[in-house]
């Protein structure tokens, strides 16, 4: 079993790499948008597949303890993606001009939905929110849907985005299968 602290370090490594790449004199921030956004989406998917995966394969229930770190990292890379976007655009006017494009507002909204999730991903918030913590965390599903739409629209193509989200959709679908243990 990987210690959680090691997982946090591993999850932070790509950010370090991209931060170094971004401060190079000839850095092309536009080119860093795709990898940061893609990693954020991958981590969001990874966090979301844990529950249906463990339901399918109860032996893997140990994965649950990593879910929070993965989810917070998904937000972190979303934020890095946004920071690179803002720097690459370099103009508030240009950003406002494209805010209405469906490929852009979907991204803003997805990250906005992930913000309260990241802020409440700690024990103090879990205790303070009590029974409303779980319904709040379910915002991850609309966030994932918006992330998929953002990807499809901004990238002018379905293939890559769908290849990422179809596994998530399939796993979510297995929740509607009758539980095998219950009927055993």
């Amino acid at each position: 079993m990987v210690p959680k602290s090691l997982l946090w370090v591993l999850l932070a490594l790509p950010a370090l790499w991209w931060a170094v790449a971004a401060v190079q004199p000839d850095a092309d921030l536009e080119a860093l948008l795709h990898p940061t956004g893609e990693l954020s989406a991958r981590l969001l998917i990874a966090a979301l597949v844990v529950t249906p995966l463990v339901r399918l394969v109860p032996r893997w229930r140990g994965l649950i303890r990593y879910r929070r770190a993965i989810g917070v990292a998904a937000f972190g890379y979303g934020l890095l993606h946004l920071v690179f976007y803002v720097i690459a655009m370099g103009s508030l006017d240009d950003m406002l001009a494209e805010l209405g494009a469906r490929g852009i507002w979907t991204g803003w909204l997805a990250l906005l939905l992930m913000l309260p999730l990241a802020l409440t991903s700690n024990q103090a918030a879990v205790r303070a929110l009590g029974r409303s913590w779980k319904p709040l965390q379910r915002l991850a599903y609309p966030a994932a849907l918006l992330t998929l739409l953002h990807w499809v629209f901004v990238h002018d193509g379905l293939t890559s985005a769908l290849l990422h989200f179809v596994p998530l959709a399939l796993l979510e679908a297995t929740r509607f299968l009758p539980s095998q243990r219950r009927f055993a």
Partner: protein
Amino acid sequence: MKLIISALALSLAAAVAVPASATGVMTCQGDKAKWQSIAKLTDTIIKDGWKVRKAKVDGGCYEVYGTTPEGDRVEAYFDPITLEKLYVSRRGEVLFQKAK
């Protein structure tokens, strides 16, 4: 059960393996020997009032990241042989498409 898990593993592998560069919205055919230079394209459109941030080949077309004379920050595709403007989009929102 094993089948579901294998199908998932396979689709995940495919997702990771598909190259990120394959954008695929526009493709241009035509003899590469007849291509004009990409510098000729950027010179021409800069004279027309464009600002060019980056120009490269994508799908056999010239793809330009820049700002139009109207002030829209866009991604535009040009025919590498005729240098004709084919397609202009802003984050997937189509602003111009050459009539077929």
